[in-house]
């Protein structure tokens, strides 16, 4: 879907991005992860030509973006800015309707789609006539997302979409984010410097440092097979937590004891990580999980054992 080939960019004397190549499939989320100033935003903006690459080529569906009309290219790419980037003189309604209006949608179509988006993002309808500065940070962020998703673009670029939020709001928006159907079947490139976030949201992670791409791969790959010391350093101190987040509980199903008796409090499992379950277990000695219709019992100890067995068989990769 998106393919970067040997992309470089420098500003005056800073080499912001050095020879980066990667590709993103049409239904996967790639996270650009790295410390501040390592060139993440620059890389992202080159994809919708807000910044022009010095060298290298970018292809979208096999077509070189240099050959696509700038505005047409951008109309097909949703973009969520680092600080929401809502137009201050437009109401929320007008902000969300920007792309539909540029695409010359009719009013009815725009209105019904807007209502749908506001609903999906848990935004009250009465926000429509307010101005961005009358909204909370979390609401602004969601409006920014709604605006980017209005015209159902096949590609979504997000620059630290949860950057400016407090941890609690951040958690709840991230949860919504994971479950939002609008985000399925899209090629998403997301920028963050938050390692936890990268592991929770990314199908693959591209780790950058100083404008260079150090390693790209699934979260567990980066953890288990770091290419060099830099990658190791990056995860130092968080490795255990990250690996627990990288393993989905359902994969441990074969190694967990079944629970004999049925209780209503069983947690139904789809994409939860081991970490999520451990957080629940911090408050009670055991819990029951319902995985693919089977009922399992889990305690801290049994989960750890299951992980060991899982790693031994699968050699550390999920699925």
């Amino acid at each position: 879907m998106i393919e970067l080939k040997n992309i470089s960019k420098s500003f005056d004397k800073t080499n912001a991005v050095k020879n980066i190549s990667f590709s993103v499939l049409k239904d996967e989320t790639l996270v650009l992860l790295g410390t501040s100033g390592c060139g993440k935003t620059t890389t992202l903006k080159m994809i919708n030509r807000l910044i022009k690459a010095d060298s290298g080529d970018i292809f979208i569906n096999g077509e070189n973006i240099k050959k696509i009309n700038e505005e047409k290219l951008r109309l097909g790419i949703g973009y969520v800015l680092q600080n929401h980037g809502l137009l201050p003189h437009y109401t929320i309604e007008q902000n969300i309707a920007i792309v539909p209006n540029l695409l010359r949608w009719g009013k009815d179509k725009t209105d019904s789609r807007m209502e749908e988006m506001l609903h999906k993002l848990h935004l009250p309808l009465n926000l429509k006539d307010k101005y961005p500065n009358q909204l909370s940070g979390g609401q602004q962020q969601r409006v920014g997302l709604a605006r980017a998703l209005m015209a159902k673009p096949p590609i979504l670029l997000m620059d630290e979409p949860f950057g400016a939020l407090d941890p609690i709001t951040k958690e709840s928006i991230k949860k919504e984010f994971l479950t939002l159907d609008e985000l399925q079947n899209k090629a998403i490139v997301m920028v963050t410097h938050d390692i936890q976030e990268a592991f929770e949201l990314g199908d693959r992670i591209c780790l950058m440092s100083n404008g260079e791409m150090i390693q790209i791969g699934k979260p567990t790959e980066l953890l288990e097979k770091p290419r060099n010391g830099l990658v190791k350093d990056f995860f130092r101190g968080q490795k255990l937590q990250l690996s627990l987040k990288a393993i989905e509980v359902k994969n441990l199903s074969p190694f967990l004891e079944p629970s004999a008796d049925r209780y209503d409090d069983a947690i139904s499992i789809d994409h939860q990580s081991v970490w999520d379950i451990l957080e629940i277990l911090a408050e009670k000695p055991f819990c029951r999980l319902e995985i693919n219709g089977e009922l399992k019992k889990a305690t801290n100890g049994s989960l750890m054992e299951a992980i060991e067995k899982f790693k031994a068989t699968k050699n550390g990769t999920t699925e």
Partner: protein
Amino acid sequence: MEQQNSFFQFISQESDKLLNQTLVHIGLTFISLIIAIIIALPLGVWISRRQKLASSVLGFAGILQTIPSIALLGVMIPILGIGVKPAIVALFLYALLPIIRNTYTGIKNIEPEVLEAAKAMGMNKWQVLKQVELPLAFPVIMAGIRTATVINVGVATLAAYIAAGGLGEFIFGGIALNNTNMILAGAIPAALLAISFDFLLSKVQRIGFKKLKTHLILLPVLFVLCSSFYFLPLAFDGKMLAGFTPEFMGRQDGDIGLRKIYGLKIRTVVISDAVMYKAAYDKKLDVISGYSTDGRLKAFDLITLKDDKNIFPPYFAAPIVNQDVLDKNPTLERILNLLSNKIDDSTMTSLNYKVDYLHQLPEQVAKEFLIEKGLYKSPRNGNGATIKIGSKIFGEQYILAQMYKMLIEGNSDLQVETKTGLGGTKICFDALTNKQIDFYPEYTGTGLLVILPQKPKLFAGIMGDKEKVYDYVQQEFNKNYRIKWLKPIGFNNTYAIMMRRKQVEKLGIKNISDLKENLEKY
């Protein structure tokens, strides 16, 4: 109360003129403003894209802004002549800076992230400009337009100097004629115009760009409507054009006398003395009201028409001095009288010619003259009291002031300070009565008709006689203001009607009655 009454009387008497001047004033302001907006807005947008050009464009517009208005109008005349064109161009130039600068700043102050967002959504440059930059910069741009409007309403008063009309006609006429009502009749409407335009535009500014969009078409319409006011009063006809100074326009012994006593009917514009002669020479004007000793008479080859019905009273020049100052400095009177009867009409004309046309310095001309007459003495550099000499704002007065300075410094230990260029009669005379100056050269006719309270019947009797006028003003000034008229300098700088020599010869006009007949022929 009486003052107020007569002010309203004045307004109602002159309501036609007032309406005309107000409309012209609005027209001038808005025509120049529209042109300025049309040029400055895109220019401001353009330089916001080209950082390198910004400082030079803003710097240039800034320099234009610092040129004194009168000087700017003066510079326009050789290029554009007199009347509407140079006035509009000058006003336009003044309006440029605030609009360019505010457009530039307004756009530059928009958060880069907002612009990036707009671009990223897929807007093209034009859409970004129209939907984001202009609306966000709108309040700042409007503030610039407001500033420009207020500046223009103010500067447009000066348009009266170059025959473009407007409320300046009353203001400057009033200053020249010492007529407070006339000044107020110009100044109050001008101030009201400035305040109300500023208020209206502040409303527009508050409405904001978005809601305005639907009414946006109305705005230019309104502006054009205001501009068209200008052309309403211009529906004159007539083959000759007269240019009279604001002062001349309001005087019994000026335009009023010409109409009443000669029955002269001629299309007239109001114009500053500074540009009138040149305009006559350039055939922009046919008839002007000049002064009989003006150097430019010689320079521009103009002919004085004979005043065959004696409407212009004698204007013999003499220093008028505060009596207190004479009492305190007993030598002063003798020194000032050294100049009495030393300068006749033709001498004064040629002295004026040197200053006004050959651009020699008044000091130099004064010194040469005094040396020639054997009156010059090197300054004693004494440290006595300081005598403050005033002068009105034209060459002859500068020369006389310099002569008096040299005489005082050479013949006494008094020190001298000159306050030249005090505008018209009113400003000079007020300065004198308020003791800001000690003396200045005044003309008997001006004393009689401008400064003293009007007594038409009495004046009619003495008008023709220069001795009687002198005696009368001397007496009255002493009685009313404790100001003393010293001995006359000799020349008679009276009003005169002038035309180009060639035209006069061609039409066979010798005096003002001939001119009247000629005008009525067709």
